[in-house]
C-alpha cells in the first residue's frame, strides 16, 4: 500500500508544491523572440496555479524576505538602482508618482513691467516657468486661492538692460534675484488712494521676510544656473517679477521634479548550446553593445560566452539571421528585477525624490482606508 502511494507521488502530473520548470520560466521571465516577446504578462491572481497545488499569493513576510535594493550609481542629480523582487504594478506606481505627483516649486505668475526684447511676453513667461527652482518644496504650502504669502510663494526679480553701443547681451537664469520680502511692485489701485504713511501694498502679502526664517537664512533660494532666458540687443530691456508656487507634474510638466524616471527589466542572455569557433566570432560581431566575448578553451578552440548581459538593449540582432540563431541564443528579461534610473531637475536629490514618491503612495492608501471606515 505504502509503495503504491510513493509510486503515485512520482508520477509527473502530481502536484509537488512547485511549478514545473517550463511554467516557472513563463512566470518569471519574458522571452524575447525574433518577431515579438512572449509571456509578457504577470500572474497576479493568488489562485493562478491552484490546480497544480502552488500558492501564488504574495505574503507580506515573503515579500520582506525577497525584496532587495542595490544602488549602482548615485550623484547629486542622477541615480540608478536595482529593485529586485517587486511587481511591475508597484514599480510603475513609483515611476508615475515621481513624474506626476511629487511636488516642486516653479514659476507660475510673471508680472512684466517692461519687455522690449524680441522674445514675446508669453514665450518669455513660459521659458521662465520651465527653469528649475532650487528650493525644498516640503518647506512650502500649496496655494489655496488666497493671497500669496511667505509660506507659499517665492518671488524673483529680473531686471536687465543692454545699453546703447554695447554688444548683444545674453540674459541667463543667474540674473533672477530672489526677493525674500516678496513683491516690490505696488498694486496700482492702492498706490493712488493710500497715503504715503503706510507701507504700499504689493502683489504679495508677506508677514515676514523669508530670509528671517531659519530654513532659508543660511541657504538662500536660487534658480538653476546658466540657463539662457533671452538675448537683448542695444537699447532693449526686460523688467519683471516672477512668482513661483508649489505644484505637481500632472498639472504642468514644469512642476515635475525629474527630467526622466524610467525602469527596464534586467536582461538575461543564455546560450542554449555551445557556440564555437566561426559561429562564436559571428555572434560576437553581431552584438553592437558587446554582450558576448570569446574565450579560449585550449587546443586552439574558441567558445562564445555571455560577459555583459546587463548591456543588452534587446536589439535582437543576435537572434536574427535564421532559425539556427534563435535556437542558439535565448534573450530573456527577469520580470521582477527592475533597473530604475531617475534624473532630478535639481530641487531635491534623487534619493530623496524616491522616498518622497513612496510616501505619497502610502498617503494614498491611508486616504482610502480612512474613507472606507
Amino acid at each position: 500500500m505504502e509503495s503504491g502511494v510513493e509510486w503515485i507521488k512520482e508520477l509527473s502530473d502530481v502536484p509537488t508544491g512547485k511549478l514545473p520548470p517550463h511554467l516557472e520560466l513563463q512566470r518569471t521571465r519574458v522571452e524575447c523572440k525574433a518577431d515579438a516577446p512572449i509571456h509578457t504578462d504577470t500572474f497576479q491572481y493568488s489562485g493562478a496555479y491552484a490546480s497544480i497545488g502552488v500558492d501564488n499569493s504574495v505574503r507580506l513576510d515573503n515579500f520582506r524576505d525577497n525584496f532587495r535594493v542595490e544602488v549602482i550609481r548615485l550623484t547629486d542629480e542622477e541615480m540608478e538602482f536595482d529593485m529586485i523582487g517587486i511587481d511591475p504594478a508597484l514599480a510603475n506606481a513609483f515611476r508615475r508618482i515621481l513624474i506626476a505627483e511629487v511636488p516642486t516649486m516653479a514659476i507660475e505668475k510673471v508680472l512684466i513691467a517692461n519687455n522690449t526684447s524680441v522674445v514675446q511676453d508669453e514665450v518669455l513667461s513660459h521659458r521662465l516657468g520651465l527653469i528649475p527652482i532650487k528650493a525644498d518644496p516640503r518647506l512650502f504650502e500649496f496655494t489655496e486661492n488666497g493671497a500669496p504669502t511667505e509660506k507659499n510663494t517665492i518671488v524673483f526679480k529680473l531686471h536687465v538692460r543692454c545699453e546703447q553701443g554695447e554688444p548683444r547681451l545674453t540674459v541667463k537664469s543667474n540674473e533672477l534675484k530672489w526677493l525674500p520680502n516678496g513683491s516690490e511692485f505696488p498694486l496700482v489701485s492702492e498706490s493712488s488712494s493710500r497715503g504715503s504713511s503706510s507701507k504700499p501694498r504689493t502683489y504679495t502679502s508677506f508677514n515676514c521676510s523669508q530670509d528671517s526664517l531659519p530654513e532659508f537664512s543660511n541657504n538662500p533660494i536660487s534658480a538653476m544656473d546658466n540657463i539662457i532666458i533671452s538675448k537683448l540687443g542695444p537699447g532693449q530691456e526686460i523688467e519683471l517679477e516672477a512668482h513661483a508656487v508649489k505644484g505637481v507634474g500632472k498639472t504642468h510638466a514644469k512642476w515635475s521634479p525629474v527630467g526622466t524616471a524610467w525602469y527596464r527589466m534586467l536582461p538575461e542572455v543564455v546560450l542554449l548550446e555551445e557556440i564555437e569557433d566561426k559561429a562564436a566570432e559571428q555572434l560576437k560581431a553581431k552584438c553592437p553593445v558587446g554582450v558576448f566575448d570569446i574565450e579560449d578553451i585550449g587546443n586552439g578552440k574558441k567558445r562564445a560566452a555571455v560577459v555583459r548581459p546587463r548591456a543588452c538593449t534587446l536589439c535582437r540582432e543576435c537572434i536574427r539571421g535564421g532559425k539556427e540563431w534563435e535556437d542558439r541564443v535565448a534573450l530573456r528579461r527577469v520580470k521582477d528585477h527592475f533597473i530604475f534610473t531617475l534624473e532630478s531637475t535639481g530641487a531635491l536629490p534623487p534619493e530623496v525624490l524616491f522616498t518622497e514618491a513612496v510616501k505619497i503612495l502610502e498617503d494614498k492608501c491611508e486616504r482610502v482606508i480612512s474613507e472606507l471606515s
Partner: protein
Amino acid sequence: MEHGSISDPSKSTFSLTDEDHTLANALRFTVNQDPRVAFCGYSIPHPSDNRVNIRIQTTGESAKDVLKDACQDLMLMCHHVRSTFDKAVGDFKISQTVKDMHIK
C-alpha cells in the same frame, strides 16, 4: 464612494475620486494577491473624469474589509520598500566615501 448591492456585501464597486492607474493598478495587484478574492479589476469610466472604479468580488468576506486589508498591505509594502531603499543608499554612500579615501 462604495456602490454595491446592500444585501450582498461580498460584491461591490468602489469609486475613488482624484485617483488614476497609479493607485488602482497597485491596489488591483494587492487585492488579487489575497486568497479570499474571486475577482478584482478596475476601470476609468471616462478619461476626463478624475475617478477610477475598482470592482471586488470575494468568496464570502466583505469586499470592503478585503480592500481595507489590501490598502494596509500596500502601505506596509511601501514602508518596507522605503526602509530597504534608505538602507541601501546609506550603505552605498559609506562605501563611496571609503573608496574616495583610497584614491587620496
